């Protein structure tokens, strides 16, 4: 596959372009900063290519339109930012129950409540632990660059179809608003299975298809629950993605995703200048979480401590602690409210941990 010439594009626009390239012809959304450029792009392009664009009357309407299009067998996407994604949670739970493939994008802003409009990672819990009611998971992907927004959005559609579930792209205001060069492929690696379950007319079959999330009998529902659990186990085995940088000889290992991992890359270089070897594990899938690599890294004799960096009060760090299993001290540093950590703040934390890996570690 030949890569085309690089073009400078905004993260939000690249998400929309990637969806269209992945064969998505149905987009339903409701505007909210800092993701509205996804909608702008879709509004302009869907008309030109004969797709469907609806600015719904609310987020709740938009996610139920997603349910409908997915149930009919079409590739479909919605996007929003934190308060809007909260409103969509009921529909997301129904999508999980009905086992429908769909892509949802959350360009996270700071909360709780209306909060602010600046970048945050405070929706990690909501995204990775289900978010709505009931026992379910979503695949959650956290790109760290505009190029990754492109490639992983295309991949999100493939994964959604492969496992018949919702795949979420979790970004933040920085990633959505920034411009970087992106090289599009001439042809996308689209893998779209047949959808014999889709409710799109009988097509000569004797029985019509039914798409539903209601199972009134406990035994029926438990059977469905178990099917979901079995599916999630396969995903945890097969779909974990992460990037590991310099962990073979690192004294301190940073765990950070998306925008935070970008800032940490600079800090790793600065720490090396001070003679401190810092590595990084960057989860690309937040669920399934790359717990095995973290557990194995914690067992390395060179590793003295972990440092989790987030734009939150500390959410992913709980998964990091579970994965480390008490083998090494785990530290946390986060900024909230829409602020990003300065590189110097992280470097100071690293220097302090280097002097005493146990001091101020989490319980």
């Amino acid at each position: 596959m030949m890569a085309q010439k690089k073009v400078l594009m905004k993260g939000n626009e690249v998400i929309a372009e990637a969806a269209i390239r992945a064969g998505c012809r149905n987009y339903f959304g409701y505007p909210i900063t800092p993701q509205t450029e996804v909608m702008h792009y879709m509004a302009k392009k869907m008309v030109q290519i004969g797709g469907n664009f609806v600015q719904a009357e609310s987020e709740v309407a938009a996610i139920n339109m997603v349910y409908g299009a997915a149930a009919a067998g079409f590739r479909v996407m919605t996007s929003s930012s934190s308060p809007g994604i909260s409103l969509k949670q009921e529909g997301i739970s129904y999508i999980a129950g009905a086992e429908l493939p769909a892509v949802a994008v959350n360009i996270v802003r700071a909360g709780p409540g209306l909060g602010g409009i600046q970048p945050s990672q405070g929706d990690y819990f909501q995204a990775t632990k289900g978010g709505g009611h009931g026992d379910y998971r979503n695949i959650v992907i956290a790109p760290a660059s505009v190029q990754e927004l492109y490639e992983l959005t295309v991949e999100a559609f493939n994964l959604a179809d492969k496992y018949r579930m919702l795949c979420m792209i979790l970004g933040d205001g920085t990633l959505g608003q920034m411009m970087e060069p992106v090289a599009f492929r001439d042809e996308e690696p689209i893998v779209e299975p047949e959808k014999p379950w889709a409710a799109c007319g009988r097509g000569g079959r004797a029985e019509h298809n039914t798409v539903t999330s209601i199972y009134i009998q406990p035994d029926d529902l438990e059977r469905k629950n178990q099917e979901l659990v079995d599916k999630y186990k396969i995903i945890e085995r097969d779909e974990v993605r992460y990037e590991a940088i310099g962990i073979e000889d690192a004294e301190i290992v940073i765990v950070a995703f998306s925008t935070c991992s970008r800032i940490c890359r600079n800090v790793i270089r600065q720490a090396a200048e001070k003679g401190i070897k810092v590595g990084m594990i960057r989860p690309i899938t937040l669920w399934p979480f790359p717990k095995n690599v973290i557990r194995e890294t914690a067992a390395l004799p060179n590793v003295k401590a972990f440092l989790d960096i987030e734009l939150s009060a500390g959410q992913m760090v709980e998964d990091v602690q579970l994965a480390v299993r008490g083998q090494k001290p785990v530290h946390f540093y986060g900024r909230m409210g829409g602020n990003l950590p300065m590189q110097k703040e992280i470097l100071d934390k690293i220097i302090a941990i280097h002097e005493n890996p146990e001091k101020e570690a989490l319980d």
Partner: protein
Amino acid sequence: MIDFSIILAGFGGQGILSAGKMAAEAALYEGKEVSWFPSYGPEMRGGTANCSVVISDEPIGSPVVNNADVLICLNQPSVEKFESYLNPGGILIIDSSLFYVEPTRKDIKFIPMEASKIASDLGNMAFATISMLGCMSAATGCFKKESFESALYEILPERRHKFIPGNMEAFSKGAEFAK
């Protein structure tokens, strides 16, 4: 060149974000890695606007600039807000036809230039930021004049190509202030 960092700041409507984008396009034309990150939100409407541009030979870490090599300011509050971000030896360029304030830092290079006057002499106020990019280009070599011109031809629709010679004149006049 690793992580050459630029902050452009001023009032919303002065073309700050576009100027940053054009700097990124010029560097991209040279095959460099680039990133552009804007301030966004309500501050754009008549308030302050700023953006960070990073140019590098290597993949860029943070697109958010804490340590700038060049600071381009089109109003006084921006100087006060961002002066401390400059690396020692960094360059502060201000549009002295709009305001004048001496920087408090003594370890930086200060270039006051009459950017808006250059622009009004050429009959297009949008050229003010272009002249400041010209100054930055000449003072630092972060991208070449020829790359800037080629990038303009590449990204602007053909009906707007007639404005490019004027842009380049502003660019060249700005470059003279780097001497």
